[in-house]
């Protein structure tokens, strides 16, 4: 399977941005082999709601400087924020929400990148 270089570059960039702001448990999943309609997820945990918002702001602002804007969504949750960059979807969650919804467990067969 040929990986989309642009998407992979974006995944790497998002991971770097999240690490810059001390996100925890940053994981990227390549879902293309296990899902017919999803490509890449980047998951990260925040230690608090303000931290969650800070991560969201940081990723959004930095990528916007590079001309990338997430697709509009209908709103977020205090525990879970999604930034949808098309092929790459970023899930920022509190540790509790991340454990509870366990997206990594559901897509356990996805390749980690």
């Amino acid at each position: 399977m040929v990986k989309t270089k642009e998407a992979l570059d974006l995944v790497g960039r998002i991971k770097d941005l999240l690490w810059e702001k001390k996100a925890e448990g940053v994981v990227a999943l390549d879902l293309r082999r296990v899902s017919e309609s999803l490509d890449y997820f980047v998951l990260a945990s925040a230690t608090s709601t303000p931290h969650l918002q800070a991560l969201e702001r940081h990723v959004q602002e930095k990528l916007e400087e590079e001309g990338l804007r997430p697709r509009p969504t209908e709103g977020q949750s205090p525990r879970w924020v999604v930034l949808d960059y098309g092929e790459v979807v970023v899930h920022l969650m509190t540790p509790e929400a991340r454990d509870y919804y366990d997206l990594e467990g559901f897509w356990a067969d996805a390749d980690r990148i």
Partner: protein
Amino acid sequence: MRPRLSFLLLGLALLALGGVLSLPRASGEGLRPKRAGSLPEMGLVVAARDVEYCGYHTPCGPGSRTDTIFYLRLEGGEVKGVAIPRDLYSPVAGGKINAAYGRGGAELLKRAVEEATGLVAERHLILTLESVARVVDAVGGVEVFLERPMRYTDTAARLFIDFPAGRLHLSGEDAVKYMRFRHEALGDYARLDRIKEVLGQVLRRAQNPATWPALTRALSEVWRELDTDLALEELLPHLPAVRGLRLSLATLPVREGPGTFLYVDEEAKGRFLAAFFGATPSPSPPRAAVRLRGLPELLPWAQAFLAREGVRAEAEAAEVARSAVYARDPEAGAYFADLFHLPLLAPHRPLEGVVVELGPDLLQ
């Protein structure tokens, strides 16, 4: 853009499954991680409460009448739902089935639905119109295509419907209006068909992970308004499994009777239920006329796709709001719904063969 099959695969609200998608209530509650297995299996009655009046022209919240009633069977990654007309005579309720909830709560409503369908209803989810609107908003609204304007005014109910013909994007509040409207030739049957259409869209949108935070938030806010024996904590861990859920919706066969009552068409019911709930997509194409309707740029692709399956389909360019498969024959419909990974909506209105509608959502 190439219509990647994956987009077609996204085709498929269930507010019933809203429960699957909601976050726990208060931040202080412990979130216990659970491993998501396959979706739970259950027979579920979903109903929506109408508006109560405290006086002349004074609506004052959810009423006891439920004009919208569905029996849903959730099994093996599939939801199959049967709409039950509100005017159906229910012996156990001693009147129309839409009064059962008011007379005996959810338990009587479940018994009435079991009596009508012969199917086991284990659980219930009684919605309010406001909660429906909130959830529709959370998934970004729905799109419809109206062949003629939809207008209706009921000052007493404070219901003002004024939609122009054409393609419309409806907010939650407007979607509720769209689903309440029944002032046309097919009356309540057409209303049920519109509800099926909206449910299909809501589920389809709920399958997009980008909607999950907003959806979980909305559901956690509305859950307390609902009368249900579904525990959120029981359903929550299954959220990602909603992505693979397939949906089929039809209407219980009924016949007209004395007065304004409808009665279950027992002979047709047996055949219908066996075909609808027993339908598994056959390995080979069923003998049914197939018509493709929708975006001109999608039609040649879909025709070629079907030709590879040995199916010859007529194609018609048409305005289509969202993609779905329409068929009265559950087995034929199941085959094409499975092939295109789209919801199967069996309308009450007469329909020949199978119609596959291909809308702009497939290119998004």
